[in-house]
């Protein structure tokens, strides 16, 4: 190393020779093209998929979105929430409340749910961020239960037994059933792309770099000028906003809501954690892989009843023991590939 011979030109700029910062790799460029082709194919799904498959795809999208967002929270920000059902449920009830009481069009209500979810998270944050680690996890769950019990008191939305979306509102999306289902499907696809795009853009940004820094060393992060608390709250609120929109869309697909379904810790958090853990926590690709595995298991085994849940549990245990970084972690370690490149590469010219 010949560093001593290099003059340290702290203020000057003459030092830096020509360089460029790159991120894409040949693998990632191929992956990007394949992703575009895939998205194009999925946009066209209403023309090639049957009604049941369209429904299944829509459901898969919402789980891709929820698990990618949870992965951003737990895998990158260190915020292990077991209360994301608070926002899914809030989204569902926002959709029903806004459309029934104020006559807002359903798809507009889905967008507005994002604002309400973000505001809700901003109100919860001062309470939850006093808690650390496992206590934070329990706190989020308690908050979700408070939401569930609160919405069960709203008699106009069916109280504890829930309600259906009135036919007039459903028809207002589009009178023709297949067009309506198409619109809901495209909305789910678009929202999932927004969620994925948000996660990827955030991780590639300066804030994503700060998240990695915070994960690696909090004391060094602060001494480099990073505002740890603000960074975490930002991610928490943004994640909550999108999760709430996803929640609204989920119940637009279901057309029926009840407090039990809306704030189900099983459906909106346990399955989501399962997906992220088996796919690979702390990787962008993990939640996608995990969602595919989860739905493959569900579609083939769901008619086994409780045995299906036993198998899910066994799969989770085996993956955690044999591949703690998840299925994608195994692939990425063995072949050293990243479909979505995050790291910056300095190229000198």
């Amino acid at each position: 190393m010949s560093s001593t011979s290099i003059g340290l030109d702290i203020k000057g700029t003459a030092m830096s020779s020509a360089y460029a910062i790159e991120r894409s790799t040949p693998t990632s460029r191929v992956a990007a093209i394949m992703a575009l082709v895939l998205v194009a194919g999925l946009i066209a799904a209403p023309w090639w998929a049957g009604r049941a498959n369209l429904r299944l795809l829509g459901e898969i999208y919402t789980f891709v979105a929820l698990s990618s967002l949870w992965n951003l929270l737990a895998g990158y920000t260190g915020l292990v929430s077991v209360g994301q059902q608070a926002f899914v449920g809030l989204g569902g009830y926002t959709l029903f409340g806004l459309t029934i009481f104020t006559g807002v069009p359903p798809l507009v209500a889905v967008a507005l749910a994002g604002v309400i979810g973000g505001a809700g998270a901003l109100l919860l944050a001062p309470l939850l961020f006093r808690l650390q680690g496992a206590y934070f996890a329990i706190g989020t769950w308690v908050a979700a239960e408070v939401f569930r019990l609160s919405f069960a008191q709203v008699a106009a939305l069916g109280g504890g037994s829930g309600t259906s979306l009135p036919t007039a509102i459903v028809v207002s999306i589009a009178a023709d059933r297949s067009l309506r289902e198409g619109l809901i499907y495209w909305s789910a696809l678009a929202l999932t792309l927004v969620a994925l795009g948000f996660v990827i853009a955030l991780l590639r940004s300066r804030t994503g770099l700060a998240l990695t820094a915070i994960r690696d060393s909090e004391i060094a992060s602060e001494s480099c000028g990073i505002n740890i608390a603000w960074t975490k709250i930002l991610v928490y609120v943004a994640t909550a906003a999108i999760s709430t929109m996803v929640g609204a869309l989920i119940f637009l697909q279901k057309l029926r809501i009840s407090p039990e379904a809306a704030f189900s810790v099983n459906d909106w958090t346990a399955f989501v954690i399962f997906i992220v853990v088996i796919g690979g926590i702390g990787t962008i690709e993990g939640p996608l892989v995990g969602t595919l595995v989860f739905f493959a298991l569900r579609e083939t085994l769901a008619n086994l009843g409780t045995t299906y849940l036993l198998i899910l549990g066994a799969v989770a245990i085996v993956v955690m023991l044999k591949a703690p970084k998840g299925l994608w972690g195994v692939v990425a370690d063995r072949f050293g590939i990243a479909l979505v490149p995050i790291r910056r590469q300095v190229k000198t010219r």
Partner: protein
Amino acid sequence: MPLLEVTALSKHYGALRVTDNVSFTLQSGAALGIIGPNGAGKTTLFNLIAGAIQPNAGRIVFEGADISALPSRERCRRGIGRSFQIPHPFVGMTTYENVLIGASYGRGASERASEGRAIEVLSASGLMRKANVLAGNLTLLERKRLELARALATDPKLLLLDEIAGGLTEPECHELVETIRHIRASGVSIIWIEHVVHALLAIVDRIIVINFGQKIAEGEPHRVMASAEVAEIYMGLDGEAA
């Protein structure tokens, strides 16, 4: 106006006084060495100045402003950079990205506006060839250089170096001293905690001796090193410091 003015600074954990009524000043452009036995409270003093912990009493004034209550990120923005005794690289990102964090967050600049500075500091620190290596895969010397580079990237007016020469071979140590000499020559003030005294003496123009949290001596380096207090404290320590 001095760059840094520490007045009657105290920090205690229960009955244990880790920093006990310490006062000193640092003029702009000066280099100050801090020595003392292990556990004397030297790193605690750095943590107090950098804002990683809060004092129980006393004041820290930087460039005329009382910064005692500011969080460490704000002190960094104002121009206090630090390296850690045990390197704290951000292991999940590349060397370049580590330095970019300092250049960007440390100066409150956008990523685009920080790339040039990050590259500049990398090459000045002899780390350019390791730019794309994950920081977790660096050797000890490279990690120490990265500590220095990341702190330097924040464009500090005052650089706090915590035992940065420890564990290095003689030629490595010599290289590092040269780098620090260049940094000082560029106008950065330095406070340096170091057990490798000959490295320290090559740079600093004043030394403070800390023992049991108290400042027990201060003055011109060779005079301080020759004093009875220092000889007594270092009795029983290894030869390089005695």
